């Protein structure tokens, strides 16, 4: 008897946790008033922040590495 189901992460994140986000983006794109410029600002904020965080983690790691030396 061993663990049968452990690789469930993709379903958990993309199939459950992100559902509200999918609905949100749907609401943004399809909801009135239709204003794709503002939607673009919102999406730019979301993806820009994600990118900024990835970079920040990398930079942070480097700085901490200096402090640890």
């Amino acid at each position, binding site marked *: *008897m*061993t*663990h049968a189901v*452990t690789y469930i992460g993709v379903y958990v994140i993309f199939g459950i946790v992100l559902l509200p986000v999918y609905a949100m983006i749907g609401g943004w794109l399809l909801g009135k008033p239709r204003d794709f410029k503002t939607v673009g600002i919102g999406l730019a904020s979301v993806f820009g922040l994600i990118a900024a965080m990835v970079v920040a983690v990398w930079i942070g790691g480097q700085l901490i590495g200096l402090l640890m030396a």
Partner: protein
Amino acid sequence: MEQLPETPPGPDDPGWDERVAGTLEEVDFDTDLGKRMAEDAFRIADGELSKAEFHERYTDAVEAEFGVDERPTKSALETRGPERDPLPKVPDDREQTRRNVLKALGGVTAAGAASLAGCVDDTGDSDPPAQGDDDGIIDDIPHETQLGMVIDTDRCIACLQCSEACKQENKTSQGAHWTYVFRWSQDPEADYDDEHDDSMTRPCQHCTDPSCTYVCPTEARFKRDDDGVVLTDYDLCIGCRYCQVACPYGVNYFQWGEPDPPEMADDGIRDSLHKEEAFENDHFEHDRTSRNDRTVAGHPPEGVMGKCTFCVHRQDSGDPDLEGTTACEQACPVDAIHFGDINNPNDDPQQHLEERPDLDRTQLLEETGNDPNIIYVGPQPSRNAQPVQGPQSYENLGMTEHRREAIDDRFTQEGETDD
């Protein structure tokens, strides 16, 4: 079939061309192709050519000549994640047997090829052939190697030599017992005696379904495909200790501070926390890099997790005297530890099970679902068994048994760290 000499000429010997021509004369296929493949087969055995390269080199020619390409070297091309290495440095894979080299030759007859292959270097293949191959018939059944142990608790005398040898071999820090000896009793008030008390050593169980690998957020903790050893990549690990909290067996030991291996120890208990005594150089005497190019052997660096590696540096060493052995197994004076491929009935673990059919066989914490690969034969601790001191103590051997106590002592004596 011509009579072949005892030690037929290899590709570098004068009689080679004649021999090939002679052997392949009776075969309807391309002599030149057969000769080139035979020469390359020797190179695989010598470690100069990888099976993957060999496979790719001849794919088109083999398909053109034979219509199919069913050579077993195909599997060497498949990538199965970072732990699957298609480029072995030495013939270390049990499947790298004479028979597979034979198959790589393609259309050469079995008899002739058997003689040719008699010259193939069998370095590293000191184990008996895998199950099903005793009859000499080539087959395609994959034999999944899973390294594990059968540990005989009936023989175990709680001498702690296994723990000590492991520490000496891997240079683990004070309080880190990659294999730890449980000594228990049903009556903790009584002195330890053979009647009522028992002992067992607990290495990492190298589970088939290791919860530690599932929870690791960096892929630093992984299970090797080819031999089932569970290892920690010391370059990737971020020291989050999730593997430690997810493991049911308590086999993980985190490197909380600078490593303080026994070499630096005074006689008796060493105060292990003074930075000025911490070593600069790595005292681990073996190669830290596994055959799949990850830094996994020996004690971990500071801030990273470590545990029993089944002496992976020995398994990957290419040295036939070291492969298939572990430091603890060698040190045990009563031959309680039997290390090897537990799926192979001819290897040490299963052999020992056959020798002791009278003893109970159990595994630790089976209900966790991790499917451990350590089988214990002999007396087992009951649910109510209490720990006791055995005939030997860790402190007597210059080791700290419980690291927590050493740290607590240090803090009460000195106040705080002066690092």
